[in-house]
């Protein structure tokens, strides 16, 4: 029993109510409501790192009938990313929405989104995961259409309908699991699930639903318009965190619950789709004329890398080698989370000052907004995977796993993806550093520029130098052992 686990979920939920009741003070409530869960997450992480996985049976009901919250290495890392990114974005949003008419609505939804994310990362029960997934989807959709433009409403509606299809497919998988094994508690299922028709069908349905939500090629088409047309702080969390939630679930299902059910063939299919996503997403990012659209296509590509880890993980036996590869996957996901949120915030600053985000007309940005241009360059280093960023180490580990498992075929994809990423980042930097009239008269460092640059620094420096912490936390699992 550990009551600490309730706070990362309860604090944003309570402050969301406060923000609803007191819209005029919602800026302060929103920032505080994001900061308090960060403290709780830090405490949880410290405890997990010191003494292993934590578990809380809600209301004192034992798992099985009741619902358990669990925190282990993987969930703590995702929680840390989500809490740190939302903190920085909240500070940014308090400036971005300072005088906006709809800031009350924004903050309520924002805090509910944090509640859903944290509940998802802590949940130890399949049905509870479905509920948090829906809660996350619904809040994300409403946040995505806060801009109010026709394009953003259309994109949000498409996002909602596809998300609904995805979660229904996930839910039917949950039903099959309950029919087959009589429980939805993930710790009990980890031991119970054995390879067979029920497990295969359930896993395919649940994975299919989650792949829609994590925008794997060819199910990615809803992502670029939805992410590119949302207000900047919303795009940042959609791209950095919300798609990662579905990915986190796929990891849990594939590596812990259905360990031994997953076949190499299934993993290769997902890996091939990931590889296509890397090449196609990077190519589309290179062609994009708008900064935010480029960032959104880059998200499709970066998610592709994460799925390319699947055939590697499936080929490795459980043990140190697999933990190294899993650590690399998580490190890549974390680096992308921080770098992409920094990138979207910087794009938002440029868009606010210049009134547009057309890449070809960004000349002079580096002179008038030096900190923001620096942020984009730093985030670009992490997106390409140059040293000393976390993604450099992750890709390095990915390459060495390729050699260990003999799966050389993926090598050209990584090379092409990295080169294309270099091309689209340098094309952007070329325009930003070119002479031009600039995007605004201001030379001062804005309060909104600092959180963006901090996020980019975390991606490029902190995760690069402290990457070993990721590899130390990943093996602390609450769901040790599969049904194999």
């Amino acid at each position, binding site marked *: 029993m550990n009551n600490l686990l309730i706070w990362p979920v309860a604090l944003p939920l309570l402050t969301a109510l406060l923000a609803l009741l007191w819209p005029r003070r919602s800026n302060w409530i929103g920032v505080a409501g994001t900061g308090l869960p960060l403290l709780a997450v830090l405490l949880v992480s410290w405890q997990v790192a010191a003494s292993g996985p934590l578990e809380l049976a809600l209301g004192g009901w034992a798992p099985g009938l009741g619902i358990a919250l669990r925190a282990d290495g993987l969930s703590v890392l995702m929680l840390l990313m989500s809490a740190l990114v939302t903190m920085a974005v909240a500070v940014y949003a308090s400036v971005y929405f300072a005088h906006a008419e709809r800031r009350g609505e924004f903050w309520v939804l924002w805090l509910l989104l944090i509640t859903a994310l944290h509940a998802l990362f802590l949940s130890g029960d399949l049905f509870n995961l479905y509920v948090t997934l829906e809660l996350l989807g619904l809040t994300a*959709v409403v946040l995505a259409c806060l801009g109010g433009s026709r394009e953003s409403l259309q994109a949000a509606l498409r996002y909602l309908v596809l998300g609904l299809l995805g979660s229904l497919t996930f839910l039917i998988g949950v039903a099959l699991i309950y029919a087959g094994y009589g429980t939805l508690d993930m710790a009990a299922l980890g031991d119970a699930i054995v390879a067979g028709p029920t497990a295969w069908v359930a896993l395919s349905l649940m994975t299919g639903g989650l792949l829609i939500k994590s925008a794997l090629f060819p199910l990615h088409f809803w992502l670029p318009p939805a992410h590119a047309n949302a207000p900047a702080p919303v795009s940042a969390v959609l791209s950095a965190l919300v798609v990662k939630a579905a990915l986190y679930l796929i990891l849990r299902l594939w590596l812990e619950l259905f360990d031994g059910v997953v076949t190499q063939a299934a993993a290769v299919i997902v890996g091939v789709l990931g590889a296509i996503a890397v090449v196609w997403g990077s190519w589309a990012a290179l062609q994009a004329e708008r900064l935010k659209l480029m960032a959104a296509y880059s998200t499709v590509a970066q998610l592709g890398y994460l799925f390319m880890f699947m055939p590697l993980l499936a080929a490795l036996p459980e043990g140190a080698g697999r933990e190294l590869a899993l650590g690399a996957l998580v490190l890549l996901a974390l680096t992308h989370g921080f770098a992409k949120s920094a990138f979207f915030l910087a794009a938002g600053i440029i868009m606010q000052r210049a009134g547009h985000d057309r890449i070809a007309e960004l000349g002079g940005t580096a002179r008038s907004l030096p900190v923001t241009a620096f942020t984009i360059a730093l985030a670009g280093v992490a997106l390409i995977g140059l040293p000393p960023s976390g993604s450099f180490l992750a890709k390095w580990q990915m390459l060495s796993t390729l050699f260990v498992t003999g799966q050389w075929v993926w090598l050209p994809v990584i090379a092409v993806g990295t080169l294309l990423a270099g091309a689209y980042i340098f094309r952007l930097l070329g325009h930003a550093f070119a002479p031009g009239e600039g995007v605004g008269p201001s030379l001062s460092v804005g309060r909104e520029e600092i959180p963006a640059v901090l996020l980019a620094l975390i991606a490029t420096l902190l995760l690069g130098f402290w990457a070993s912490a990721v590899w130390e936390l990943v093996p602390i699992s609450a769901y040790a052992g599969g049904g194999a």
Partner: protein
Amino acid sequence: MTQVLLYALTGAVLFMLGVRAALLRDTVLPRLLALNVSGAGVFLIFVSLAYRGDSLPTDPVPHALVLTGLVVAVSATALALALNRRLREMDNE
């Protein structure tokens, strides 16, 4: 047992019909209706799972899950309808 299987299979067929229609239609309202048919199929599967023979009381867990699922489905449908209405209003302006 065969009766339970009949209900569960009906649920699966409903789910697939709904998914098929949702993927083939390109307007919002039929798509939403189709997704709701799919949802009904999923809930039917859950409800039929709860039956444990005449001698035992029904399993309460799937019932609780269906209730939660219904709430989620209704809210998501309402949100989609509201978004669709806003889009229509924009077209008329």
